[in-house]
């Protein structure tokens, strides 16, 4: 009887890749070899630029400033500005100084009631400007309808002076002093004790400038339509009238006679209508009145960069489906049992899946948005829209931020699928929590409820595309319906990241605790 030695079979094949790298490779293989998922990932990449290329929006929407969105007045630094006002001015060569007392600032609606309709940012005061063509460099000190005295220059710079409203009982003394290209604004309650507000340098200011008294006022505030409000209340234009006395112009060269000019108002609806009280200026016994409408400030009409990112919502819908199925699909076919048998450390399995879907989503989002921006911009421009260009740094932020947003939403969908173990439930939850709040905020809810939604839901992350700045000193519609988010781009992304991290943590705990 001979003894047979049984040798256990040993595979001669090389050992599989050990550790986390092997796990990553396994998960990547799962993702890329399902044809439907690969198609969905491709859609994540191409939907954003494709929809940007299909943009047919036209520049027919009239902004509160009266801008049609097709063109813009360009101010110093190449930014779009609104520059509509009425001014009594004369030429100042070299250094000089103008001061005046403003005794009233009132507002009227042409053809409307005799009620004082002065707006919080109705303005009347003194201005030194590089000419009366719209978009010229300027510095001005002014009384406002509801915000006290302010000094503003070159459209986007603003400094507050004395608080309180202008009236004959409490008039305001204003002064602008020029020395070379430096202009200093002062205010005073009595005309003897002057307080400097700010000294500003207007680079390249020529020797000969215009100096004078101006008045202007934005119209009554328009609220963007939300479908909960039945009627959209359109704003009406307001004419501001400033009354000045004690006007003193100290200059070696001043001619002494005032010229009245309407700046930029040719394209405002006021000039076209021509009914009711008109813009203009009067002078009697040392008292000057100036009446104007419009605004001097930045103009946010036209099309912003974020318009090119509209297609991201469709791209995200495709990504949500693939990310949820990438996780829940394991439960559907029972693959999860094989996966966990091969890699019993469940936390690492989830980490590998997160890393794979996060990286794939980030890459697809990055390519898609990087393509959508230039494509959308050229389409919008060729349709005749005015496009608000932004700095390269801001563009990089928008592209990188949108890619990060895509990655976070992919991971959130994966985590929800791991928690719910059903792809249909996870997809519904994701679209209801991410896309629906945005749709409601943009199209249905009144602005306070809409802002609240965009602060507390994962839809806050969409703020990362925001490029249009808000100005505290411009009365404009900054509601979500007009495209403004209540949170800054990175705050918005942080809100989404909090949801993602919380869901991922819960998913990891549940994956460990539950039976597969």
């Amino acid at each position, binding site marked *: 009887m001979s003894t047979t030695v049984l040798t256990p079979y040993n595979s001669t094949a090389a050992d599989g890749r050990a550790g986390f790298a092997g796990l990553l490779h396994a998960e990547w293989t799962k993702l890329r070899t399902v044809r439907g998922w690969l198609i969905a990932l491709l859609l994540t990449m191409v939907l954003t630029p494709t929809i940007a290329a299909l943009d047919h*929006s036209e520049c027919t929407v009239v902004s509160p400033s009266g801008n049609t969105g097709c063109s813009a007045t360009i101010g110093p630094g190449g930014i779009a500005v609104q520059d509509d006002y009425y001014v009594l001015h004369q030429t100042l060569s070299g250094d000089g100084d103008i001061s005046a007392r403003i005794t009233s600032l009132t507002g009227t609606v042409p053809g409307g009631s005799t009620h004082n309709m002065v707006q919080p940012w109705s303005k009347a005061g003194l201005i030194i400007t590089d000419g009366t063509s719209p978009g010229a460099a300027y510095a001005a000190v002014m009384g406002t309808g509801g915000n006290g005295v302010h000094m503003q220059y070159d459209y986007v710079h603003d400094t507050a002076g004395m608080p309180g409203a202008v009236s004959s009982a409490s008039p305001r003394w204003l002064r602008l002093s020029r020395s070379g290209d430096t202009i200093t604004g002062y205010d005073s309650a009595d005309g003897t004790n002057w307080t400097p507000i700010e000294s500003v340098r207007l680079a390249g200011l020529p020797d000969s400038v215009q100096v004078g008294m101006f008045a202007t006022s934005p119209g009554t505030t328009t609220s963007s339509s939300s479908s*909960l*409000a*039945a009627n959209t*209340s359109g704003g009406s234009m307001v004419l501001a009238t400033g009354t000045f006395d004690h006007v003193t112009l100290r200059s070696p060269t001043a001619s002494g006679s005032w010229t009245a000019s309407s700046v930029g108002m040719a394209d405002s609806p006021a000039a076209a209508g021509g009914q009711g009280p008109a813009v203009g200026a009067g002078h009697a016994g040392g008292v000057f009145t100036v009446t104007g409408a419009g605004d001097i400030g930045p103009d946010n009409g036209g099309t912003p960069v974020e318009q090119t990112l509209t297609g991201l919502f469709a791209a995200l*819908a495709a990504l949500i489906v693939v990310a949820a199925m990438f996780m829940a699909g394991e439960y559907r076919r029972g693959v999860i049992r094989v996966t966990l048998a091969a890699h019993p450390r469940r936390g690492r399995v989830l980490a590998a899946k997160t890393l794979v879907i996060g990286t794939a989503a980030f890459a697809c989002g990055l390519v898609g948005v990087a393509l959508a921006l230039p494509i959308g911009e050229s389409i919008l421009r060729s349709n005749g829209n005015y496009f608000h260009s932004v700095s390269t740094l801001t563009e990089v932020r928008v592209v990188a931020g949108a890619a990060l947003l895509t990655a976070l939403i992919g991971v959130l969908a994966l985590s929800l699928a791991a928690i719910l173990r059903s792809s249909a439930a996870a997809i519904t939850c994701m*679209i209801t929590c991410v896309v629906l709040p945005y749709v409601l905020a943009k199209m249905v809810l009144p602005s306070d409820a809409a802002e609240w939604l965009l602060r507390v839901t994962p839809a806050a992350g969409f703020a990362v595309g925001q490029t249009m700045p808000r100005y505290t000193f411009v009365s404009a519609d900054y509601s979500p319906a007009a495209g403004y988010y209540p949170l800054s781009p990175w705050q918005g992304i942080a809100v989404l990241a909090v949801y993602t991290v919380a869901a991922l943590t819960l998913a990891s705990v549940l994956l460990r605790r539950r039976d597969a």
Partner: protein
Amino acid sequence: MTSATSERPASGIVLRTSTTVLRSWAPVLRAEWTKFRTNTGNWWLLGGLVVLVIALGAVSDAVTGCAAATCDTDPGKTSLIGVYAAQAVAAILGVQAIGAEYHTGMIRTTFTAMPHRISVLSAKAVLLAVTVACAGLVAAQAAAWLGQLVLPGRGVTPADGLPSLSPLHEPMLRAACGSGLYLALIALLSLGVAASMRESASAIGVVLGLLFLVPLFADALAPATWQRHLEQIAPMTAGLEIQATTNLAALPTSPWAGLGVLAAWSACVLAIAQILLRRRDSQ
């Protein structure tokens, strides 16, 4: 699919009277009802739908602030805003009604037992429509009733063209009942999409994309002249016009016509689903 009819003469199907059709359809309906009733998930979803409509409506009523003189808030849309979220639940119900059968393979048993695709699909559709409409009507009536209690305290009072906030009178009656029907039509649309795609996850993505993204893109991308037309044909914007109670003249279509557009969507998708079910293998 011809096995059940092969013993009969070729003309038998054509010549069957409506009573025999009903007699053969009733057991299918009963079978589908057993499937629906014994799945606890369905009852949770229906409960969730009711809670969403009432709770979100209550929040919306409570936060509405309106100065009486310039108040332009639409009481119907305000009280019934929960329907926006509840339609996602109706969509899951519709998708899962057939998607779950494809998921588990049950669909093969179903079609073996009842080879007439149209009997199965119509039984599912009737069941789904009735249950979702019942839940939706109860929820919407409750939400409208809450609105009647809360809104006058928030400054929304009956105005011109709006005789009463009562859910028993026009136009709140129409808004509330229409919202229940809207949810049922969304469930039917979802059933049709899921039956065509044979897969729950992608079907729910397609349905919610159609509902939420089409109006978003119409709003952002289309020229002003197209926007109104797109609002008239997009299923969500057209269907939810049924909730409008003030300023009806400014609507893209009349409320009932809007709901009719959604009904046409659901009917078309179900018809396509029926054709595909007849032509394709069950898995």
